[in-house]
Structure formats: C-alpha cells, structure tokens
C-alpha cells in the first residue's frame, strides 16, 4: 500500500489491533471462572514508516515516487499469558478441587477487564473516525475535477 490509501490501511491496522484486544478481553471474561485458564494480555507494536524514515536518515535524495510513505500502522506483537498466580477458592464439591478442597481460578479481575474493554472500544472509535476523515479527504481530491 502506498500513497493516499496508505492512510486508510494504517487506520485499518489500528481497527484490527483494537479488535484483537477486545477479542482477548472477551476470552478472559468468558473464562473468568474456568479453573486452569490463564489470563491473557495483548501487547501492541508499531509498524514504522520504513522507506520514508530510512531515506530521511540516509539523506538520499527522495524522488517524487519515493515521497509516498510505505508501511506504517500497528500490529499485535504478542498475546502473552499473565504469569500471576490465580485465585484459590474453596470448593470441595468441584471435581477439579485439590486435596485441601481448593480450586485455582484465573486472576481475571472483571473491573480490570471492563476498563480495558472501554479503552479498546474508544480506541477503535478513534481509529474509525480517523478512517472516516481520510475517506472524506480523498473524496475532496475528486472535487478538484468538478
């Protein structure tokens, strides 16, 4: 992707990343009471503007073709299990209970998950708005010919 539509691709990558976060939050919430489940966390990573930054650093004379930015956006770097110990709940009737009658539940805190969910949802909206703005901008380009 390059040129005008790079902009849309970048915002789309933001949408994908936030959706991935939302998916993991949903999984954590769904498995809040599943013994043996480990809470997962998403870490995001920047996809840099490769050619443009490299060119600026090397000081090479950029042609008009190279002016268009390449790459850019965000990607999910990793979905890592949360290493913290789970909650120990006394439930002797549970078939998965240990000899003391305790079941280990994941350390999923619904409050944390809900706040993360709000963040992911709002960030999704922000990217959707940026995409909408980009779309309007490109439509304006055609106004030159009108």
């Amino acid at each position: 992707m390059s040129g005008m539509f790079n902009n849309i691709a970048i915002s789309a990558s933001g949408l994908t990343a936030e959706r991935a976060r939302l998916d993991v939050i949903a999984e954590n919430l769904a498995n809040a009471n599943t013994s043996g489940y480990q809470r997962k966390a998403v870490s995001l990573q920047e996809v840099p503007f490769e050619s443009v930054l490299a060119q600026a650093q090397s000081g090479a004379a950029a042609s008009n073709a190279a002016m268009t930015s390449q790459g850019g956006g965000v990607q999910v770097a990793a979905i890592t299990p949360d290493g913290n110990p789970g909650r120990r709940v006394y439930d002797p009737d549970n078939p998965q209970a240990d000899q003391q009658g305790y079941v280990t539940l994941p350390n999923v805190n619904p409050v944390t998950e809900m706040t993360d969910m709000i963040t992911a949802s709002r960030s999704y909206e922000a990217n959707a708005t940026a995409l909408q703005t980009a779309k309007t901008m490109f439509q304006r380009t055609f106004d030159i010919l009108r």
Partner: protein
Amino acid sequence: MAGLTQRSGRPPFLNRPSSFVIIFDVTQQALEASLRGSSMRASALAQNMANINTAGYQRVDVDFQSALNQAVKEADAAGSQNLNVQFSVQPDETAAVREDGSTVDVDQEGAMIAQNALQYQGLTQVMAARRRMMEMTMRTTGT
C-alpha cells in the same frame, strides 16, 4: 505572488521562458506540494492514532508548511519558476511523554486530524477554483 520576481523594467510574466505554461506557476506547484504534504501528514497522524495503545511509541509528524515556506523563499530568491520541495515523516521529540512511555495524546491527535483534513479541503477548493478560472479564460478566448 510567489516567484514572480521583477528583474527588469518589464512586467514579471514577460521574463518567463516562452514555453512556460501559466497554470504550472509557483502557486500551482505550491498547491500541489501542499496537497502532497497534507496527505503525508494525514498518514503520519493516522499512524499515531493507530498506535494509541502502543507502549513506548513516539509520535511522528510532517512539518510540510515550514519546508514549503522555505522552498518558496528559495525559489523567490533565485527567481526560479520551479519549486523544489521534499517532505519527510519525522519523529516528534517535543510531545509530552505519557506514563507508559508513549507520546500520543488522543485529543491532540484527533484535533490535528480534523485540522489537517480541513486544510486539505481548502487546498482542493482553491485548486478547483483555479481550474475553473482557466476554463473561463479558455471559453473567453475560444470561438
């Protein structure tokens, strides 16, 4: 007008090479360059918005106005009708750092995206107006 430096007693447009076409004057070139710069800035701002939750991310920006201003001044000084300007995406070192090491502020980015889009819209409208003016001229001189 930018680039129309008067070198003799004659009006500046007579100093242009005869093959020179007036629609591609410095103003037109500056408009085109602005559109290019604004488009590139939109990508940079979209990149910042996409990385709103990336810890340690450093925001990027394109200062196309300064580059263009410089290029127009240089063209003016040289009496040249060719605008030579390049833009690049640069890391923004001045923004405030968040607790997680990122330098993106969602409100600031949103405002900048809106501002940049409006600027782009203004540029396209000026270009459209210039094009209509040209068309009007052609209609007047035509049979």
